[in-house]
């Protein structure tokens, strides 16, 4: 199988009488009642079309939007389609949700899938009717021969279609013919989500299942030495205990980019409450790692590191300038942030012999499969991953740490096991957004930035996660690279032990705050209106060659800035104590500008309105897209107002929503979202709207009060 290319394999399937399946092996898929025309398309003999959602759903809407693209090309009515989540399937490419890439990477493949099946159905009809394909059309699940008034349903054609060769380059629709893409469609799980019938992975119950809460080592790098279960044992329903040490299971990082902090003592019970109570009452003696971080101390090290020699990430012209030539010389700092998805981490697994079946709210099924195979030392082919709808993820479920412990425990107890994390464990044992301290030394003359030196010091993900490549948490393509003649980005790594991971918008969540704040500071120091200053900085050239392989469409940045300014009534008078602030960025596939309107009264901040203009290319499902933008803005606001993880003596201090706060409805401003209509291919949307929120708010605070906020979360 591995010797065959995908195309060969597809042809082989098509050429054999492997039943009704094309493009995939028959294992467990073909039945007497339906035909599979593609791994993502199944047509039932009852006429029912099932589309499989390829990428994990975590609230970002891809369980709806990806199948919409398939349905568009297949030419079938959305109302007649049933959507199901695909299990992990190694034949599918890019089966992960992260980096705002689900649609961006798979738009072409989804169109191809629908168009391939449609072409095969057309070819089957052409044979049956003895008509040239060109004389036939498709509509709403039928092939139509207009001239003779004949209609053949996809269901009736599917078996014959499956026996035909798979076309190399099926014809795609012209964008102008789209009937479904670009229309607002309800989430496919809307009904179950509002009636309580939606199944999340925490809701699973398998026969004979054990419930486990792992009492986790306060520091991921530590190990349990011994435990006293005298009190825990008395909790009715607690049945057993088991020690897990990551040193026994591949160590701290089991695969590149895959941390595996499983150390702790598993409390095994017959129900969730008993497991939670047992874990609370269990006493464990820990061996803590020698090196234990303190976040305050880390910030002092970051700040000191800003005077150290740094790795040059990008250098243009002559960026160094004397103190006298600088317009600003300022330092910003950003905290560690947690993910706190609404559904705490959990996983269910059943390991039997050398086979593992896993139900997981994972963002990254391929990594989950690889990690499971690795810790159990079984072939990946023996691993099944059922991808469950996640109750939020935001990057936290990208790794497999919450899955590996579950499979190890299921193997140990020879029973299905569900592991449940308390909210406290979820907060304390996260992989955090890196904290950083950044310094900007810059100069502007005549309203133009001439010099920009951005120096970043942080505890870097690359080193922590043992990935190859530069540790720099600033990319050589990031704005304003390409727009300032004398520019230097440099980076000082300050490696530490605080666990790090992918947080929504990754390093852009920090860097956009710094960049948009500094641009605002330069505008004010030049005595200019920030919108005018931004537009001058972006300039009039449509394209700017930021890097040899990155031609940046600056006109789109300009457009979102103008649109946000216009829609927010930029320049119109506001009452005393209220003001607006602007921020803009291109990140994770979206050009975004946001204007925040705030009121500061008696040292209290109220964010009144956020106007967001966004260009993410073609929008597949507008109502879902607006939900994403609003969600990103709320998350950005929560980070600006509240988000901060503190580490003392290696231990995370926050634990639940009282000390790691998130916005409630009373914090939420009016949010006004405007998409730039675009026929360009879809880009990313899930992350882009988040980073500009904090600087738009702090720039507005400056405009209202003259007070410059350079540290998050905001303290007035």
């Amino acid at each position, binding site marked *: 199988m591995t010797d065959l290319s995908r195309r060969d394999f597809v042809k082989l399937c098509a050429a054999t009488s492997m039943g009704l399946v094309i493009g995939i092996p028959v294992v467990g898929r073909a039945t007497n009642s339906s035909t599979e025309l593609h791994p993502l398309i199944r047509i039932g003999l009852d006429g029912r079309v099932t589309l499989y959602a390829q990428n994990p*759903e975590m*609230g*970002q*809407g891809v369980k709806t939007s990806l199948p919409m693209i398939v349905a568009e090309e297949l030419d079938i009515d959305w109302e007649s389609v049933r959507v199901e989540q695909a299990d992990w399937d190694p034949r599918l490419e890019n089966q992960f949700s992260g980096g705002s890439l689900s649609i961006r990477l798979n738009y072409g493949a989804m169109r191809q899938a629908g168009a391939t099946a449609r072409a095969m159905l057309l070819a089957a009809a052409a044979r049956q009717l003895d008509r040239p394909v060109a004389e036939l059309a498709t509509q709403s699940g039928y092939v139509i021969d207009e001239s003779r008034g004949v209609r053949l349903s996809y269901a009736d054609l599917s078996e014959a279609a499956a026996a035909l060769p798979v076309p190399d380059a099926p014809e795609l629709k012209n964008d102008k013919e789209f009937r479904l893409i670009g229309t607002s469609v309800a*989430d496919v*799980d*809307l*009904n179950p*989500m*509002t*009636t*309580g*019938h*939606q*199944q*999340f992975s*925490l*809701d699973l*119950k398998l026969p004979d299942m054990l*419930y486990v809460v792992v009492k986790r080592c306060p520091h991921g790098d530590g190990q349990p030495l011994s435990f006293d279960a005298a009190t825990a044992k008395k909790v*009715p*329903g607690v049945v057993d205990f088991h020690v897990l040490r990551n040193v026994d299971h591949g160590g701290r990082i089991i695969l590149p980019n895959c941390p595996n902090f499983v150390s702790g003592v598993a409390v095994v019970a017959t*129900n*969730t*409450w*008993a497991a*939670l109570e047992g874990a609370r009452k269990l006493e464990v003696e820990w061996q803590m790692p020698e090196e234990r971080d303190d976040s305050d101390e880390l910030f002092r090290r970051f700040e000191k590191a800003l005077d150290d020699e740094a790795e040059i990430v990008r250098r243009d012209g002559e960026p160094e300038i004397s103190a006298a030539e600088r317009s600003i010389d300022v330092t910003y700092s950003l905290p560690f942030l947690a993910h*706190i*998805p*609404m*559904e*705490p981490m959990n996983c269910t697994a059943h390991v039997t012999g050398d086979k593992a079946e896993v139900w997981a709210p994972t963002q990254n099924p391929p990594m989950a499969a690889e990690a499971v195979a690795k810790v159990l030392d079984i072939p990946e082919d023996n691993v099944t991953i059922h991808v469950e*709808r*996640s*109750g*939020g*993820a935001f990057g936290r479920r990208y790794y497999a740490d919450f899955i590996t412990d579950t499979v190890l425990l299921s193997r140990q107890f020879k029973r299905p096991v569900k592991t449940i994390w308390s*909210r406290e464990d979820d907060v304390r044992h996260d992989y955090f957004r890196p904290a950083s301290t950044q310094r900007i030394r810059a100069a502007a003359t005549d309203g133009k930035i001439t010099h920009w030196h951005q120096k970043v010091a942080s505890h870097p993900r690359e080193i922590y996660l043992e990935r190859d490549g530069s540790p720099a948490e600033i990319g050589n393509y990031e704005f304003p690279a390409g727009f300032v003649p004398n520019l230097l980005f440099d980076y000082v790594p300050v490696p530490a032990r605080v666990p790090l991971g992918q947080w929504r918008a990754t390093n852009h969540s920090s860097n956009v705050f710094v960049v948009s704040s500094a641009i605002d500071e330069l505008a004010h120091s030049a005595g200019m209106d920030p919108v005018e200053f931004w537009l001058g900085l972006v300039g009039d050239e449509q394209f700017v060659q930021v890097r040899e392989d990155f031609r940046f469409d600056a006109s789109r940045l300009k457009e979102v800035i103008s649109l946000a300014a216009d829609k927010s009534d930029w320049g119109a008078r506001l009452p005393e104590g209220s003001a607006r602030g602007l921020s803009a960025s291109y990140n994770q596939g979206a050009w975004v500008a946001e204007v925040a309107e705030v009121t500061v009264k008696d040292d209290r901040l109220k964010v009144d309105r956020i106007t967001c203009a966004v260009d993410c290319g073609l929008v597949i499902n507008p*109502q*879902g897209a607006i*939900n*994403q933008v*609003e*969600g*990103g*803005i*709320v*998350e950005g606001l*929560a980070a600006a107002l509240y988000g901060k993880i503190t580490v003392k003596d290696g231990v995370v201090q926050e634990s*639940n*929503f*009282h000390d790691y706060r*998130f*916005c*409630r*409805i*009373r914090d*939420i401003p*009016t*949010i006004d979202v405007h998409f730039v209509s675009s026929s360009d291919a879809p880009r990313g949307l899930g992350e882009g709207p988040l980073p500009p929120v904090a600087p738009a708010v702090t720039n507005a605070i400056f405009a209202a009060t003259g007070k410059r906020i350079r540290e998050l979360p905001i303290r007035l």
Partner: protein
Amino acid sequence: MVRFTLNGEDYGFPGDSDTPLLWVLRDSAGLTGTKYGCGTGLCGACTVHVDGEARRACILPVSAIEGRTVTTIEGLSPNGSHPVQRAWQEENVPQCGYCQTGQIMAVAAMLERLPSPSDDDIDRQHTNICRCGAYSRIRRAIHRASELSRGESTDD
């Protein structure tokens, strides 16, 4: 054995009477629409109605509801037809969906007390967390649900 009325039927829980109602519902009664989000009464994901009032089931020992009447999201209406559910569907509120059953239960109870809440009322009284940030739609859906329920009661 703790006995109470659960979605209109008698229910008996034979286990530890300190068990929070949340886990009785989820693990014993198999009603998983009531969610665990914090376990400390902070987020509202576990909201149910006890004798018609919104309560956070994660901090309510089952012993405290002996003889009382509990309604969960599964019992709020047949087929999701309660005005709050209909409003939630019309406004396409959910993102991940995890918090939404708790939001709906909290709002359904609020509208019983306060049929036409103002934005200020909502800010003060609706405190459930939506980590995905679907708040603008939640606010719109609350107003819509208020319209729908009042419309219905005048129709009756």
